[in-house]
């Protein structure tokens, strides 16, 4: 073959192949970057980090569920009940830090139809070292459409994994998009299972209670920007819920000498959140029926889907709310409870 023909053909066929691939990715769009699913397809489970911004930007919704693994077992249909709204989107980010949530929340709030945001304020968001957190959503997904899209359009994982799975999942028998990112049925929930998962990391010797000045800074790094967003969108109602971790979680907190710090940090940050009129702060941590019953858990913090439904009902009905008047007493009562609790009962 003539070298010029070789070059021309090689480059032409390479470009044609890449354009075709890009067109397929744009049409199917498994991360919803360009549009909500076409061809009657549903937004099924792909990758939380890659699809979060796309879901926030392009789906049709008035209620957004944003949160960690504590949110994953929510069935988004529950929130399409007319009380919250008519359309809901679930954007779960397992183990995410606030730097991951922030761009998602910004997209959700920019979305024209957003009325409600349901957000899980995990304890680790308040206590993690803010300097140690690494953000896990790639910049090119956060930014608008531009040159960074090559990472999505020409991506082997997208072409050979997410895209085919997206299509196949949609057409599989028994498919139900309400189960996207729901893992509840994949695990055993029992005292035994929860203990087993926790025991390997349980401290053997109780540490002294620590000073917590730096914890306040770390907590502020989450709540201050969050409150900034909340104040920027006064017409949006923020259901901020504190998930019900089991007593094994509190055992860990107490053994690490963090009980006082944790409650003090919560007191300070909740006070700030309660200053916002559009915040409903739902506190599930002190529901003793839930947190002392290890049969609800698969490890020290993750609960089964029934608990998600109970939280949905509570948020819908306005129970478990903290107010400016009672939040301090409730936290104090919680502090007394976790300080006096017989943790050994969890292990017998």
């Amino acid at each position, binding site marked *: *073959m*003539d*070298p*010029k023909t*070789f*070059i021309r*053909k*090689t*480059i032409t*066929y*390479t470009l044609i*192949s*890449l354009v075709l*691939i890009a067109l397929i990715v744009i049409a199917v769009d498994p991360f919803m970057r360009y549009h909500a699913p076409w061809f009657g397809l549903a937004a099924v489970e792909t990758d939380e980090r890659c699809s979060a911004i796309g879901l926030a930007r392009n789906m049709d919704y008035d209620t957004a569920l944003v949160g960690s693994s504590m949110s994953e077992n929510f069935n988004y249909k529950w929130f399409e009940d007319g009380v919250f709204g008519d359309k809901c989107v679930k954007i779960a980010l397992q183990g995410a830090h606030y730097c991951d949530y922030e761009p998602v929340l910004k997209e959700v709030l920019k979305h024209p139809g957003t009325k409600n945001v349901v957000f899980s304020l995990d304890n680790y968001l308040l206590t993690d070292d803010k300097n140690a957190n690494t953000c896990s959503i790639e910049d090119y997904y956060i930014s608008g459409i531009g040159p960074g899209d*090559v*990472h*999505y359009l*020409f*991506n*082997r*994982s997208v*072409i*050979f*994994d997410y895209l*085919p*799975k997206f299509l*196949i999942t949609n057409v599989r028998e028994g498919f139900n998009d309400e189960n996207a990112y729901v893992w509840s049925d994949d695990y055993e929930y029992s005292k035994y299972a929860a203990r087993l998962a926790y025991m390997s990391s349980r401290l053997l010797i109780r540490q002294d209670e620590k000073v917590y000045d730096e914890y306040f800074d770390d907590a502020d790094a989450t709540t201050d920007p969050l409150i900034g967003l909340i104040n920027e969108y006064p017409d949006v109602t923020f259901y901020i819920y504190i998930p019900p971790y089991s007593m094994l979680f509190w055992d860990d907190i107490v053994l690490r000498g963090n009980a006082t710090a944790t409650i003090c940090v919560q007191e300070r940050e909740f006070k700030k959140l309660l200053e916002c009129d559009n915040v409903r702060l739902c506190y599930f941590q002190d529901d003793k029926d839930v947190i002392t019953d290890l049969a609800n858990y698969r490890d020290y913090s993750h609960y089964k889907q029934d608990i998600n439904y109970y939280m949905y009902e509570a948020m819908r009905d306005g129970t478990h709310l903290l107010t400016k008047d009672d939040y301090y007493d409730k936290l104090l009562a919680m502090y007394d409870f976790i300080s006096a609790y017989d943790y050994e009962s969890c292990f017998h």
Partner: protein
Amino acid sequence: MIFNSYSFVFIFLPVTVTVYHLINRTGRELPGKLFLLASSLLFYALGDLKALAILTVSIVANYLIHLKLTSENTGPRAGKAFLILGLVLNLSNLIVFKYLGFFSGILNSVFRLKLEPVSLFLPLGISFYTFSQIAFLADSHKNPSVRYEFTDYALFVSFFPKIMMGPIALAGDMIPQFNDKLRKKADPDKIARGLVIFSAGLAKKVLLADNLAGYVTWGYSNIDKLGSINALIVMLSYTLQIYFDFSGFCDMAKAVCLMLGLDLPDNFLSPYRSASVAEFWDRWHITLTAFFTRYLYIPLGGSRKGKVRTYVNTFIVFFLSGLWHGADFTFIIWGLIHGAGVSVCRLLKDKGPKLPRPVSCAGTFLFVNIAWVFFRSETLTDAVNFLKQLFSFKLLPVNIELIAAATPDELQLLQWLILTQRDKVPYVSGCIIIIAFVLIAAFISIYCKNAAERLASLKLNARSAATTVILLVVSILSLSGVTEYIYTNF
């Protein structure tokens, strides 16, 4: 910037090649060279902006010494003094940025000092461009009648295909090419061949090396969990990873040069086909071996000063080769192991039994594999622990985490389709995949044509075009989330 990036493949490479050839059409030499120099500095700055100043100072300082060395007014003694000055400056630069932390650590442990740990940033490609410049000064001293223009010299040192990871080309080989009028005309044959070799190099890096990296990273982070079988897989994976990583880069560098009408020296000639450790070094990182032979081994006396001095010289070369690769005892031990290997080869060459070549090749491959364990380990203790696991003959099954560490997307999808298991890699098929992947990679490294062989026998036909298109497309799809090159750290 790196070769295996969207910006390089889609923008930098096509723009540089096209504009360079368009400029050359004017018939003037300087604009083309200035364009290549500007492109090279941009390429370097996009990879390591803060190191650009160090590179620039280094180029200017070395060029000034070159002017002195090639000046008619410089006598032999002054010439020698300038050469020593150049060596001191270059080695000081290397020591400050690369070895200061290592040496202060040694001083702390030997003399029980409490020196603050020093960790300056490591400028991109410093080991490569320092050696290139040392060679340049040595050649200038030896041959003072050859004086180069500053543009030529700056382009030679900063030339983007080789600045990051070599090969360690010599000024005498490269600069005449920059000025060769015959090379200024765009040659479709060379560009076509460049495309073929570039696609193969890119595929080596992103399809083979980066997948193997997953096994290696897991293995060296979980040495205590390995047992013999897992250790064997991880050890082989690293042996193959480093080859595909480095030789893939060199193939791409050679291909880019071809597209620009230039030739880079070969750096790899299928090293895992070697039948002895000495032969391995004739095939692995050839330009580094050539550098040490020409500028260290021979000046030390080579093999001309008796047997003992020959072995001492060999060990000095490999000790420094190890140290060049990294500021750690693991690299030094790796170098000394190879020094011992080469010495034993020399010893047995005349007196030893003649083994069939396949047996020698297998023995050499095993030797090289074990040496790589020291090279890859974070500490000597890790290396020893790794080898203990390898030779423990604990036949632990293939670890599920090792399988999950790097199963290619296509195969994960296949498993998902067949076994309908969501996000879980079924164990048996996972074992088959990992073993098959390593064996196929080993087969490719040993039996497939290397870049030089491929160039010599390449026919531009529909088959080679189709292969190039497929490799380019699949590799481009794999550019997202690739690992960095191993040798950029040296």
